[in-house]
């Protein structure tokens, strides 16, 4: 029972970690809290569902498609709306992205209706048994994919010029500009990559959760907690906090019951905010917003 709880928590935590990275980067680099992130995850899941139900495409192969769709959407939204608002007040970006989220949800309701959908592959039900602990294949695979994506993004930031430009802008926008980095392009790129990662998380989530237009709302709470817990703008932090969050959720439902999962999550969140606002692995300069 104990090992099963730990496995369940960790496997789910990996997905939560990937769902949070894009949000955390956008917050850390741009200082924008993107409330449409839940909507991005939801659209990623619908892209995967659409590809599966129309072309029988395996959800794992739908990941690049979801990522591409959201990359374009993210780039567009940043270039047209978010960039304008960032020049006036960062806090307004919260309201702006909330409005964008409403629009995304309504469009999906119009296209797909608000019925619950699901993706059931041939291997959905089967699982691996190790020493009395059940490890469903789908969950194991999503876990591996989620962590692989997180690592890939980590390497992208540290090994490529574009990634270095993003990090430099996060550290000091003015100096980055002196180094011939165009902050507007970096912001659009960051927002697009954040959205793409949300899309990938959505495609992975489409195999584990019922798909509905409001599914993003369930994610955004977890994403917030994980981002703040891990430290804003830190990928390692997201992974660590995601796994921890999964464990906390699993143990809460074991000890107190499923109803208390959110209460405990929000209690953890408020405690972290008050005691250690920079999170577990948060660094100076990242996410310091005036």
């Amino acid at each position, binding site marked *: 029972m104990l090992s099963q709880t730990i496995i369940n928590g960790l496997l789910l935590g990996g997905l939560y970690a990937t769902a949070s990275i894009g949000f955390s980067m956008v*917050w850390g680099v741009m*200082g924008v*809290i993107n409330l449409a992130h839940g909507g991005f995850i939801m659209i990623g899941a619908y892209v995967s569902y659409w590809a599966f139900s129309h072309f029988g495409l395996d959800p794992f192969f739908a990941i690049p498609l979801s990522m591409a769709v959201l990359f374009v959407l993210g780039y567009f939204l940043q270039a047209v*709306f978010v960039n*304008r*608002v960032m020049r*006036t*007040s*960062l*806090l*307004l970006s*919260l*309201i*702006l992205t*909330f*409005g*964008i*989220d*409403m*629009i995304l*949800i*309504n*469009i999906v*309701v*119009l296209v797909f209706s608000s019925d619950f959908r699901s993706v059931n592959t041939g291997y959905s039900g089967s699982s691996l048994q190790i020493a009395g602990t059940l490890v469903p294949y789908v969950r194991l695979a999503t876990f591996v994919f989620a962590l692989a994506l997180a690592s890939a993004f980590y390497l992208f930031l540290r090994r490529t010029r574009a990634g270095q430009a993003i990090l430099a802008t996060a550290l000091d926008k003015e100096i980055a500009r002196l180094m011939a980095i165009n902050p507007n392009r970096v912001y659009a790129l960051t927002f697009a990559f954040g959205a793409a990662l949300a899309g990938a998380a959505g495609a992975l989530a489409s195999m584990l959760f019922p798909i509905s237009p409001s599914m993003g709302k369930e994610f955004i*709470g977890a994403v*917030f907690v994980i981002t*703040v817990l891990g430290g804003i703008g830190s990928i390692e932090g997201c992974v660590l906090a995601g796994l921890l969050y999964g464990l906390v959720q699993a143990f809460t439902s074991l000890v107190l019951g499923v*109803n*208390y999962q*959110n*209460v405990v999550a*929000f*209690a953890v*969140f*408020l405690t972290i*905010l*008050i005691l250690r*606002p920079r999170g577990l692995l948060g660094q100076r300069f990242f996410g310091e*917003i*005036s």
Partner: protein
Amino acid sequence: MSFLARGASAGAKRTLLTGSLVLLLLIAAPFAVSNYWLRVLTNILMFATIAQGLNIIVGYTGYHAFGNSVFFGLGAYATGVGMALGLPFVLALVLAVVVAVIAAVVFGWPVLRLSGHYFAIATVALNMAMLEIIINVGGITGGAAGLALPLSPLGPDTLYKIIYFLMLTVMVGATGFILWLDGTRFGYALRALRDSEAGAEVMGINTTAVKITAWALSGSFTALAGGIWAYWFTFIEPGSAFDINVSIKGYVMMLMGGMGTVFGPLIGAAFLELLATLVWGKFLKIHLLILGLLIVLVVTFMPRGLLYYLKSWAAVRGRRDSTDVSA
């Protein structure tokens, strides 16, 4: 010349005149309009109160309390539970204010130490946590199943008029309070805090006490709106009482009208709620879409609020008039 340039006293006189005219119209309205429009007007007054509540903590104090709906829900539940325990409606409203003040002090003490984004999100988390707590507590709150308030012995016609006048009273109270705030020591302390917290502290302002007082006042007005709303709908459930959209909508209204101004939030509330009502009736399927688009457009193109653009438009027009006269 524009009324702005003529000096504050003339501007204030005109504002007072317009204000009392609108107030007279609002007092007469329930006897002249249909039940449908009475409901729409009551809704506008409710959101105007919520927007003014936000104005105190956001517009004047500079703390962006996106989750102020927590007070709306607490007010609704305090009223509901109070009446279930046998309190008369008016005393239940007093209870709502007491609960809001206690919540603002207990949660405000740690949460108001956060600033910027962090405070905004912490209030949202507080709202969500309260929602979950009400669901899990159950018992007299009714839990997830919701809570039915005792029905009024008055007929619906009389009751809805009374509800309307209560909302009007609270809205006028909130606006009057902000008008008073504009010229008092406390109001200056709030604005000093908004512009520079460290600076305010140097000037000898007890920032913690001032912040908590401002949030308690903001919460009290919001809780009153929630309490009256609960009796108006006679049935409340956690999801609708602690609906985050309530405070987001109030925030957009405040923004639309102009935050930190006395009458801006009222204009924003009337404008957005009328628009939403018209849209709601005509395009049921895309009302979320249109509300979202409105939010995006307001935030992107007029973040300083309608009042600001109206004033600058009036000023430009006034200048043109005066040059015409001199020419």
